[in-house]
């Protein structure tokens, strides 16, 4: 069990408060703290993601990016603070939590497609069991989504028969099948071979253009530059800086961000 000290003192007000983006906030984190044992992974995180906004979270490894992403649908519990999705506080457990998770799509680094189910079944399962759609409607929707992410021809195969890039695109289709309000991407391209990264990023670019609300943890600076409305830079459990991609990449204000960028952009 993580230490529960409940203290949110200290470190407050490091990153600017979420800019609100017109006031239609879909995801709100308020003073969120979390410890892994002695490690303080999230320190007084305040973040607001507006409807239709694409927020890219970048920063050094171990800085709390993935934990932040996973906390938004409570795959990680938090020690203190509040998280709201579309105005409703995140339930602690049970049926309400399950219902809320259905509204929050999640794409994992390691794909996590259901290994014993075909590609098509992966995409229909949630529609049938959670959204209570009939099999035929779910099948139709699944095939349409698989077509959209470019793997329609693989529908009857098992995940292990697909390449990493294909698996990740199926995972995106699986999440989209729930008609989520927001999509979370936890380093979606980090486990992929280089030549497969683009096929996944293209799908994500398209989603962003279609107006999907997205929180993307990634090391793909190109994607951050081209698709993000806002870049959130995290290090040591804090949001150090959040601003537009242009501003961040050309003129970062914090030394930590300057240091980070100098290390990744110079080769």
């Amino acid at each position: 069990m993580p230490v529960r000290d409940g203290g949110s003192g200290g470190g407050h007000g490091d990153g600017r408060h979420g800019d609100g983006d017109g006031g239609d906030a879909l995801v709100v984190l308020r003073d969120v703290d979390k410890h892994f044992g002695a490690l303080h992974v999230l320190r007084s995180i305040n973040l607001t993601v507006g409807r239709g906004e694409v927020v890219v979270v970048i920063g050094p490894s171990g800085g709390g990016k993935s934990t932040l992403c996973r906390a938004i649908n409570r795959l990680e519990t938090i020690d203190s603070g509040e998280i709201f999705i579309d105005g409703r506080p995140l339930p602690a457990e049970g049926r309400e939590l399950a219902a809320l998770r259905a509204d929050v799509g999640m794409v994992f680094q390691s794909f996590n497609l259901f290994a014993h189910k075909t590609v098509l079944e992966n995409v229909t399962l949630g529609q049938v069991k959670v959204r209570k759609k009939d099999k035929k409607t779910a099948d139709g929707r699944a095939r349409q989504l698989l077509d959209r992410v470019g793997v329609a021809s693989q529908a009857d195969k098992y995940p292990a028969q697909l390449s990493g890039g294909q698996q990740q695109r199926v995972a995106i289709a699986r999440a989209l099948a729930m008609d989520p309000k927001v999509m979370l991407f936890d380093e979606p391209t980090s486990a992929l071979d280089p030549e497969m990264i683009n096929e996944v990023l293209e799908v994500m670019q398209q989603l962003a253009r279609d107006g999907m609300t997205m929180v993307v943890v990634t090391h793909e600076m190109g994607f951050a530059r081209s698709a993000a409305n806002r870049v959130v830079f995290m290090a040591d459990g804090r949001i150090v800086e959040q601003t537009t991609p242009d501003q961040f990449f050309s003129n970062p204000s914090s030394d930590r961000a300057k240091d980070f960028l100098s290390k990744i952009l110079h080769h």
Partner: protein
Amino acid sequence: MFDFLEGYDLLGAFWVTVQLTVISAIGSLIWGTLLAAMRVSPVPLMRGFGTAYVNVVRNIPLTVIIVFTSLGLFQTLGVSMGAKDFTTINFRLAVLGLIAYTAAFVCEAVRSGINTVPVGQVEAARAIGLDFPQVLRLIVLPQAFRSVVGPLANVLIALTKNTTVAAAIGVGEAALLMREMIENEAQLILISVIFAVGFICLTLPTGLLLGRLSKKVAVKR
């Protein structure tokens, strides 16, 4: 040479053995799976019950459990399992005892299978909004069972042989007949061989078939 077999219902006795095995196997598979579900559930009371059950039951000799069903449940507490004649009562009591005992081993086999399912599978299932029972039923158990067909085959073979303990409360299965024949006939070695071969005929195909099934249903990752 086999004259002495006359007058004994060898096939009938083995048929009772098969019935004991099949019914107990189905029962212990269901009860053992429920126990495994309890042991991984988020409810502390259920986890505690599952753990206590397994640790108590699997450490009691089967003979004690079977004899208890007869002396304790039936003769002391009057549990007759909805039957009137002694043959049926004893048969049902034996099935109850075998299920109670074997389920502890099924539970541990299934639980080890659950542990082979990567945590990412569970997270992905929760992330699309499935609740705990659905995650278990739709994602975790189907994958867990595929990885423990081999261990479950062991449990099933052990169960087949364990049915001989039912002789202790007078269920007319193979071992009871063997005891009767040994008492009456002067063919000790031959009788032992016949019953040994009989059991091998039951268990060998089980092991081979389930071994093949195990390879066939394995989850590819």
